């Protein structure tokens, strides 16, 4: 177990098939505390399925997942949330009918209080201050009391990420955070994530197709192709890896 200290997440031999298709095939990796790990690969290489298996949304056929040394395979997503791990989706995950503040509080609240307080307790769960700070960090303060559905796509994407960090203080898994975000917003998202990692030691795993984004953000990158890890290394190593180039270009 000692070797595992410092590892927020350990994934061991995860496989998942749908019918005859091996979506994820014997994948193992670790995520260290404070690390930003990139997960890249062509469309359909199994990245999102891997996320689903880790978060308990899908049950892997084989393999083990450990969060902070605790085996979590077979646990429901809402139980994993209690261990401080969260994700975002390729699609927007904000609740459009609630305000920005309400979204953030909702994301953070399950860490606090028992059943009675959830039924009768204060609606903000004592989280307003923490939520405001998170909103300010992502420069959304001027939109605090607006309906999330009325925000621009880029702003909703920022809210999305803010919610994930509120829900998963220990580890956040971002599924294509830059997808569909315009260039200015992309810069600001990258900057926010970088600062979040450097200043607060936040740990996250990022799936992303935007290479420039991944290369700038991540300290280590895994490459997935046909459900298996085909390369691992620093952005520089990955950039020059012939296997990776082949997987992407099909050369």
């Amino acid at each position, binding site marked *: 177990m000692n070797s595992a200290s410092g590892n927020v997440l350990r994934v061991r031999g995860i496989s998942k098939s749908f019918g005859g298709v091996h979506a994820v095939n014997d994948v193992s990796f670790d995520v260290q505390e404070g690390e930003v790990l990139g997960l890249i690969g062509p469309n359909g290489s199994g990245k999102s399925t891997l996320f689903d298996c880790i*978060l308990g*949304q899908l049950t892997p056929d084989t393999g083990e997942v450990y969060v902070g040394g605790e085996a979590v395979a077979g646990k*429901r*997503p*809402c139980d994993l*949330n*209690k261990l401080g791990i*969260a*994700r975002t*989706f390729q699609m927007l*995950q904000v*609740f*459009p*009918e*609630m305000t920005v503040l*309400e979204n953030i509080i*909702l*994301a953070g*609240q*399950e*860490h606090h*209080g028992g059943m009675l*307080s*959830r*039924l*009768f*307790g204060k*609606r903000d*769960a004592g989280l307003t201050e923490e939520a405001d700070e998170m909103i300010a960090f992502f420069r959304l303060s001027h939109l605090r009391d607006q309906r999330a559905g009325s925000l621009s796509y880029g702003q909703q994407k920022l809210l999305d990420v803010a*919610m994930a960090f509120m*829900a998963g203080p220990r580890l956040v898994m971002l599924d294509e955070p830059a997808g569909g975000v315009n260039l200015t917003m992309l810069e600001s998202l990258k900057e926010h994530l970088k600062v979040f990692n450097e200043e607060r030691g936040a740990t996250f795993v990022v799936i992303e197709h935007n290479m420039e984004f991944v290369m700038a953000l991540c300290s280590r990158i895994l490459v997935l192709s046909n459900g298996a890890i085909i390369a691992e290394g620093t952005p520089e190593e990955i950039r020059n890896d012939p296997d990776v180039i082949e997987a992407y270009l099909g050369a």
Partner: protein
Amino acid sequence: MAEFFQLLVSGLATGSIYALAAVGFTLLWQASKVINFAQGEFVMLPAFFILIGTQVLGWNFIVALLFALICTLVLLGYFFKRVIIDPMLPHGVLPIVIATIALGIVMRDSVKEFYSAEAQPFPAVFSEETVSVFGAVISVQDIAILITSLAAITLLQVFLTRTRTGRCMQATAQNRAVAEILGVNVKRMILYTFLINAALALMASVLISPIYLAKFSNGQSIGLIAFIAAIVGGFNQVRGALVGGLLIGVIDNLSAAYISAEYRTAFPLILLIIIILVRPQGLLGTAEERTV
């Protein structure tokens, strides 16, 4: 004028009972994409739980009401979800529709077979006196029904928007996968929805049975009207179901008095057709996008 006012108040009273059933309808739809075609029977049955208590077991009304509350929560809330909905849900909307239609038939015919095919008198919960307001004769019972139903729906709305559990239920309804990732116990929230629907059905049952008597076939018209009310008001809004229910109650009463009593059951349907043509998302509803 006095007559109009009388019709308006009694229309609002019955409409508010429809609203209770319609609100339950929309809650189930929002939380788990279940359209409960047995909803009318859900309103019919609790009255018979009470009658079993008062007539068969000889209890007083309050004890029988508690007994009915437990039966309703367990049978129409918990077991309905676990035995019918949970196994059917993965197979899509249509099997649920068929299953709930079948459940409605089973409930209707069980009551007819095992209790009685006759309409049963049902004790009035509120005073049956009338009061005179500006020359109009208003039934105290109507006013009390209206206040009780509106209070229940308001309370529900406050619960959904002001409490943390209510917010988690809304989050579950808006996006289940995300809610679960954010730590919301989605299964429990959906169970709460079914229990709330059962409680609303009991309430509607207790309020409507003194007016229409308790009869096995009551559910057919109530279920249809609740369904129409939910569509007219907007299927994805609690407020919408409330407005839809009240509107149909009033239209039903006024059209029967002023246009044609023979065609009274047709008027809610005409309203439904107009709404579907002109504003398919319902009066207060918002359009839902769905990828197919």
